[in-house]
């Protein structure tokens, strides 16, 4: 449902719910994912992975593997160029294939290509690697301990000028106001430490690619990714090639959620294909996905918060530690910056990113924000409890509005946090009684959203249909969104428009689909291309009717002649214009590219009713409602889907999911049997309320909706558990043993 039906009535297509253009292929199994592709003569590639969390590679002997049946190529890190550790591409390069040092259990050290998968696996097992095992650092606490072993010898703390290896990836304070004065003015002070474990995005489709290096030395790659232009540039960098030597075709993607903004396979597949002069396919197993791709960071967050008796949140102070895994990153800084929902006139936060010997972390929907929101929303809720005020009213009292500062001081643009809070407050769920024996929890979340570079080409076909070509992989229904915006602009039925995602040589450069940017930024490119096409069509219609171009208006999908001598003549339809294109100047096509500023931040508010089994600690979710500001919902069903998907993933993060490492750093639950993600039977229907406060920087008001939905669930459920069982949970996951322990200790 949509809470704020404030959409102008001129929108004929935007805001409707047509069947998605790619839906039939997806539900019939016809859609082709990277693992579905098989080329003539294709080999199968298999990685050789480190069994140690931290070790020096003494030697690699591939001779036995090379002699095995069916083996056509073997590669090691020695085949790849050395990249300076100060180069931003360095960490991803060595994460693809280790050079001298392995940094986590599962790190790739070599790879083989053979005629069959079985032969490749056998050969991989025959590669002999001699390791000098080094001390492993496996947690934030171990990473920052005095005298801790260095987890990654190439890491230097970012932008400090430090030249010595360090386990600190980045460090950054955020400050405003006078924290001591703020606490002195506070009547209520709450303070807790929260811990979260690494969790995986859990996309259904494992990473996969096929690479084929031709006799001309050019590589063609078919890959599952969130951005095939980035696959091209990253692969080129890691190989030391020019981008003109690589073409990447996007396969359908079976989920990414941030985890496919980076690459793990493509440079190796290209190297093997070049060596073997045959196409090479590499498909990760689920175990490889969990052991060797990037999870969301573990965190340890200490926050102290103060408020006055009348409910003003005066002060926040704390330290946020985030593990970046085996390489540097900005996880902690982003986490601190995501504390942007409440005004807090006095703020003092220290963000510390650490490095250890766990897999290099990767983005996961609103990266770093869920961990911080767990802490913030728990403490705000605790203050509401102590003051005896309604938890939504307390948030309304302190909620940011346009012009209020974020954690880093920049003012918020136009935002819809108040409207989102009110959507839940006015919901049937919030105004219904809490079920007997249950507890109700409320929480909120924020995410920035980003713009970046996008391109689109719109072609009009001779029968008046259109093709919309973009470079944004469709990971959340963007084909339908692009078609809807084109339909609205052109006045053309949405199913007379074919949206496609083109390869790196068939459409202009487009950045990764991340940061909830595709419908916002690529959508603007589509709109701009359509507006250019409309100008072209007006000129063609003027030629056809023998009038000046400025006498032609574009109204409801047709050229309308205004003024004599043809005023009142029948409008000229798109099909008439395209049908006559040969006689009026040739085909009609337009391309637009942009680097979009003005992404609209998004807020979400969630409400949950839970029942806690006090004998087992199991948490049952009885009812769950999510509200989120979409700006404008281009296709409301997909907005709701994003909200529901984010909620489901956040619920899994809250209640069950965690990486479990042995004392040696081996991941002990690298399967979906042991890494417990929620399934349909774990969840109630998630009720979605779309709030629409349009982003003034987008022609239709789009904010982007893919990420914010994962931010509130952890705090929401922690608050619900507190009200159901009387225990404040501070450690994730809130799984039965953890909850039971808290109940028994109260």
């Amino acid at each position, binding site marked *: 449902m949509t809470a704020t039906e404030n959409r102008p009535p001129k929108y004929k297509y935007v805001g409707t719910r047509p069947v998605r253009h790619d839906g039939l292929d997806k539900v019939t199994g016809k859609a082709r994912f990277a693992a579905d592709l098989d080329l003539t003569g294709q080999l199968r590639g298999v990685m050789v992975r480190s069994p140690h969390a931290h070790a020096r590679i003494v030697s690699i002997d591939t001779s036995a593997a090379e002699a095995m049946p069916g083996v056509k190529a073997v590669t090691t890190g020695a085949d790849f160029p050395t990249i300076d550790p100060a180069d*931003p591409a360095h960490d991803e390069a060595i994460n693809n294939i280790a050079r001298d040092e392995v940094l986590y259990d599962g790190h790739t050290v070599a790879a083989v290509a053979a005629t069959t998968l079985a032969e490749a696996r056998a050969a991989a097992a025959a590669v002999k690697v001699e390791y000098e095992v080094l001390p492993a650092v496996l947690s934030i606490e171990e990473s920052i301990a005095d005298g801790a072993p260095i987890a990654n010898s190439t890491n230097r703390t970012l932008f400090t000028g430090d030249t010595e290896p360090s386990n600190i990836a980045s460090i*950054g304070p955020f400050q405003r106001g006078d924290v001591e004065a703020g606490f002195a003015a506070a009547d209520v002070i709450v303070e807790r430490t929260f811990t979260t474990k690494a969790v995986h995005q859990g996309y259904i489709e494992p990473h996969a690619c096929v690479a084929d290096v031709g006799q001309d030395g050019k590589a063609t790659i078919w890959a599952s990714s969130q951005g095939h232009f980035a696959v091209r540039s990253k692969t080129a960098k890691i190989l030391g090639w020019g981008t003109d030597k690589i073409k990447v075709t996007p396969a359908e993607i079976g989920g990414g959620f941030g985890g496919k903004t980076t690459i793990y396979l493509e440079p190796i597949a290209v190297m093997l294909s070049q060596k073997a002069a045959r196409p090479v396919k590499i498909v990760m197993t689920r175990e490889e996905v969990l052991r060797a791709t990037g999870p969301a960071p573990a965190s340890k967050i200490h926050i102290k918060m103060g408020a006055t008796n009348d409910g003003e949140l005066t002060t926040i102070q704390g330290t946020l530690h985030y593990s970046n895994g085996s390489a540097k990153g900005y996880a902690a800084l*982003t986490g601190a*910056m995501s504390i942007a929902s409440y005004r807090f006139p006095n703020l003092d936060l220290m963000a510390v990113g650490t490095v250890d010997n766990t897999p290099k972390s990767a983005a996961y929907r*609103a990266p770093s924000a869920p961990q911080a929101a767990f802490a913030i929303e728990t403490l705000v809720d605790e203050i509401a409890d102590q003051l005896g005020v309604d938890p939504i009213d307390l948030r309304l009292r302190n909620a940011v509005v346009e012009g209020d500062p974020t954690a880093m*001081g920049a003012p*918020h643009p136009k935002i819809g946090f108040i409207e989102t809070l009110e959507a839940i407050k006015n919901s049937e769920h919030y105004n219904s009684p809490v079920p007997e024996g249950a507890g109700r929890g409320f929480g909120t979340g924020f995410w920035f959203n980003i713009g970046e570079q996008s391109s689109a080409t719109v072609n009009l076909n001779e029968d008046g249909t259109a093709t919309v070509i973009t470079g944004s992989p469709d990971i959340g229904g963007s084909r339908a969104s692009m078609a809807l915006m084109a339909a609205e602009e052109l006045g053309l039925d949405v199913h007379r428009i074919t949206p496609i995602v083109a390869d790196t040589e068939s459409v202009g450069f487009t950045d990764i689909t*991340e940061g909830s940017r595709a419908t916002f930024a690529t959508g603007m490119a589509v709109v701009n291309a359509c507006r250019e096409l409309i100008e072209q069509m007006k000129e063609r219609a003027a030629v056809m009717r023998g009038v000046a171009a400025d006498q032609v208006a574009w109204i409801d999908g047709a050229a309308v002649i205004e003024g004599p001598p043809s005023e009142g003549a029948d409008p000229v339809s798109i099909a008439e214009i395209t049908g006559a294109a040969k006689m009026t100047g040739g085909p009609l096509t337009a391309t637009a590219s942009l*680097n979009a*500023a003005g992404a609209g931040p998004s807020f979400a508010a969630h409400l949950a009713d839970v029942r806690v089994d006090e004998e087992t600690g199991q948490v049952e979710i009885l009812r769950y409602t999510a509200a989120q500001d979409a700006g404008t919902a281009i296709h409301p069903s997909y907005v709701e889907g994003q909200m529901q998907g984010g909620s489901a993933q956040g619920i899994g993060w809250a209640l069950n999911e965690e990486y479990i490492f042995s004392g040696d750093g081996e991941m002990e639950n690298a399967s979906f049997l042991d890494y417990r993600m929620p399934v349909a039977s774990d969840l109630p229907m998630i009720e979605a309320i779309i709030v629409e406060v349009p982003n003034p920087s987008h022609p239709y008001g789009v904010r982007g909706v893919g990420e914010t939905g994962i931010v509130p669930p952890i705090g929401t459920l922690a608050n619900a558990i507190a009200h159901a069982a009387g225990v404040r949970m501070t450690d994730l996951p809130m799984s039965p043993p953890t909850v039971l322990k808290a109940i028994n200790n109260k």
Partner: protein
Amino acid sequence: MAIVHLQANHATFTDGVRQLEVDGATVGAVIDELAKRFDGLGPLLREGSSVAINGELQPKGTIYAAVTGDAEVHFLAPISGG
């Protein structure tokens, strides 16, 4: 001149200065001016920061974005997404 706002981590290079007036017609020119004034700050602003002009988040790496005389420029930690 534009009013530039720096984060606390930037202030380690500026002797604690968090807000200052800087002349520059583009983000790049503002960064160049700041780099001249404060040793070590340039790489952090160029490679490790996002930028908002009058509250509007700019695309990553933007150096040619126009900065008007009365603009408020915030240098932020890098923002991306998932």
